[in-house]
């Protein structure tokens, strides 16, 4: 069963032979991969990439182990040709953690390393731009360290004694000396504080006067801030752009405006309490998030998911993918200047799918549908005054294909769309892999990498579908890949509806409020509509995760935004951002 299949391969013997001094297998119970010495990291990672062929660095994250006074940086590398991955770790002294940066080898690590710096205070030697990324410069403390307490801290682990089992109410504001969600260093004097003016970022992209227009005119470069409140940034996202006339010279994304501390809260929560929080990551694809989290915990627990539940999961996830791609295309058109009307058509069918979700899971967007070992509810008997199965058959056999064809007919050959999209934001395949791009972004660059095929999970190996790729890697190809993928999703849904077993269990075992998960680490990943969504979970055998990390595709995909936008006009930046299709809930978490 896929839930128990390893995602991480056994230690390749030849690697340990190459570096006898620096590489040891990780022998802790439930752990995989191996531990690399910080001094050898660059060499070993180079060998992993070039000799062993693990060319895709999916996830980089930190884990705090105060007992051994260490912070561990965990890397998950995969091959774009498919198959299980390789997991390696570096341990650093907690008091002064320094680790060599892998940005030179895998540029996709840039933002993820910055995040570890922000959250754990690990300094990455050789990192080109080591600043805080989610919090602001000047913020006191490294929030994800286990001994760092937030202002509304109550207890280390949930359920809190103040609420459970008594069910009492407590206002956190009353326990805080400032009456709000804030804390300051002792003897702090706000009158002495000089507010941060973001000099670091402006220094980094300091515009120099130069001869931009081919030497004819002497022009000044201009810094423009787009966002965080801007209609085309798809949420609270900010880009600092250096312009020469209308041409983009440099671009730096600034994020964290929606950083809602998902991981810190997640490590206080019980395993099951995290399920509704995952809905709010990529809020356009909550079912997919549920699926990824359920998979990673199920891998630790070794549960087998019942047949009907697997079918239900795949059905939900594929419908979600259609919703999300429809949304992406509608709002790409918004970004192109076709304000509102195409988006209205694109999200028309989405309402039908949301009605189905609401009838099944109880909520339109935040479905909280999956459980460890199955799903929470079976299909309702009827919805919209119709038998559910009839509704589903009509939806997947007629309505969705019609809606996709309609979009395709109106948009694909549109003169304006083609002239604004073809050749814009080109991302070559090697660069896409190096920057750890994922999802439609990667496949539009011609890389045939879809987790449903490359590292099959759930029951995807039973369905007949194509992995959609396009060769050029521009905005137009990303649009086309999304159209193609929706068609493939419809095909999968048709097979699910036709082949779903009627009746039977939907949850392995009896529903449990508090699951105890065996100690160990696990990296579960799925092909989310935006790309590879991974959950790295470390359990110590208790009912709460020790580490709960989200490898968010939107976040990692943004690493290459600056690179892709350079040389384009400012109006194209908006289109390129639209074609990457980010969701801020997932970028900032």
């Amino acid at each position, binding site marked *: 069963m896929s839930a128990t299949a390893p995602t991480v391969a056994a230690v390749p013997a030849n690697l340990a032979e190459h570096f006898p001094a620096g590489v040891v297998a990780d022998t802790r119970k439930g752990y995989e991969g191996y531990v690399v010495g910080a001094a050898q990291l660059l060499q070993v990672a180079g060998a992993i990439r070039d000799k062993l062929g693990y060319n895709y660095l999916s996830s980089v994250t930190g884990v705090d182990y105060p007992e051994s006074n260490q912070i561990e940086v965990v890397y998950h590398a995969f091959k774009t040709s498919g198959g299980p991955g390789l997991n390696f770790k570096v341990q650093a002294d907690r008091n002064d953690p320094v680790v060599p940066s892998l940005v030179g080898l895998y540029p996709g690590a840039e933002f993820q390393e910055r995040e570890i710096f922000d959250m754990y205070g690990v300094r990455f030697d050789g990192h080109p731009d080591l600043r805080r990324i989610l919090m602001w410069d000047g913020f006191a403390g490294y929030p994800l360290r286990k001994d760092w307490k937030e202002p509304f801290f109550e207890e280390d682990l949930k359920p809190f004694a103040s609420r459970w089992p008594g069910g009492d109410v407590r206002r956190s504001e009353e326990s805080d000396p400032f009456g709000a*969600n804030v804390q300051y260093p002792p003897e702090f004097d706000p009158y002495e504080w000089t507010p941060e003016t973001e000099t670091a970022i402006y220094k980094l992209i300091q515009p120099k006067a130069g001869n931009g227009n081919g030497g004819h005119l002497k022009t000044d470069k201009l810094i423009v801030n787009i966002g965080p409140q801007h209609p085309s940034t798809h949420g609270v996202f900010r880009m600092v752009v250096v312009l020469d006339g209308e041409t983009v010279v440099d671009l730096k994304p600034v994020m964290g405006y929606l950083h809602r*501390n998902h991981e810190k809260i997640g490590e206080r929560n019980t395993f099951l309490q995290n399920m509704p929080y995952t809905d709010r990551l990529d809020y356009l694809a909550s079912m997919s998030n549920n699926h990824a989290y359920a998979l990673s915990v199920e891998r630790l627990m070794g549960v087998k998911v019942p047949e009907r539940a697997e079918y239900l999961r795949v059905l939900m996830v594929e419908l979600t993918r259609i919703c999300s791609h429809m949304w992406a295309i509608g709002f790409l058109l918004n970004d192109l200047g076709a304000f509102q009307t195409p988006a209205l058509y694109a999200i028309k069918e989405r309402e039908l799918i949301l009605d189905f979700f609401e009838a099944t899971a109880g909520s339109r967007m935040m479905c909280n549908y999956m459980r460890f070992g199955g799903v929470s509810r079976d299909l309702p008997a009827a919805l919209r005054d119709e038998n559910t199965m009839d509704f589903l058959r009509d939806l997947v056999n007629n309505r969705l294909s019609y809606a996709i064809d309609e979009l395709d007919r109106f948009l694909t050959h549109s003169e304006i769309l083609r002239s604004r999209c073809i050749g814009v934001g080109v991302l070559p395949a090697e660069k896409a892999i190096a920057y750890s791009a994922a999802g439609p972004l990667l496949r539009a660059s011609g890389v045939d990498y879809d987790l449903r095929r490359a590292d099959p999970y759930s029951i995807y190996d039973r369905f007949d579908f194509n992995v959609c790729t396009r060769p050029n890697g521009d905005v137009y190809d990303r649009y086309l890949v999304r159209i193609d993928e929706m068609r493939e999703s419809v095909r999968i849904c048709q097979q699910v509806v036709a082949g779903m077993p009627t009746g039977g269990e939907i949850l392995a075992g009896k529903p449990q409020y508090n699951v105890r998960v065996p100690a160990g680490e696990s990296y579960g990943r799925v092909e989310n509509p935006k790309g590879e969504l991974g959950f790295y979970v470390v359990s110590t055998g208790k009912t709460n995760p020790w580490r709960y990390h989200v490898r968010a595709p939107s976040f990692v995909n943004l690493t290459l935004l600056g690179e892709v936008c350079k040389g384009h006009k400012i109006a194209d930046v908006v289109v390129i951002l639209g074609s990457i299709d980010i969701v801020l809930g997932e970028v900032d978490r």
Partner: protein
Amino acid sequence: MIDELSNPDIPVPDELKASVTITTLDKIYNWSRRSSIWPMVFGLACCAIEMICTAASRFDISRFGMEVFRATPRQSDLMIVSGTVTKKMVPQIVRLYNQMPEPRYVIAMGACASGGGPFKEGYNVVAGIDKYVPVDVYVPGCPPTPQALLHGLIKLQEKIDSQSLRDVRWYKSETNEPVPVPVLGPDLMDPRQYQLIKQRALQAAAQAEA
């Protein structure tokens, strides 16, 4: 429409009814404002998606004259705070609020904007936008369904109906002070509370010593 506006106590002759109505200045002033509330294009998080769905064809916010979403605060009457307010974002939100001309209204959409919601305990989360700007209507839900948001908008219309030209604050002679913009320090700092922060921080330090 005319029936809705006219004052039933003052009869209008039948032959004039098509073109004449007698009403109060308040009523016509409020009626025109409540029927053309322009919200700001301002999405923070998940709730923004439901806000877009409210504006889309199925729920059709334009039935209430509110479909004219403005991308600038200078042209907006209503700010729908749709999502989690974070410490990093709150200075911008307050600035946007200050830039809106009077009369202006604020709807706190969803659990996060109303009181922090599921993320309240987070270190980067402001537990409700009402800590900084005055809120007119709170809409519960996580996220509220489009129906719930429409209900909130109707409540806002009722609030507008109840206001009178005689006592609305934006026609008074005293100027309306802008909300002080919070500052990002080691943590979020409200300029109105500097004295308190200094005092409490000193107390905390003394306690830690003792």
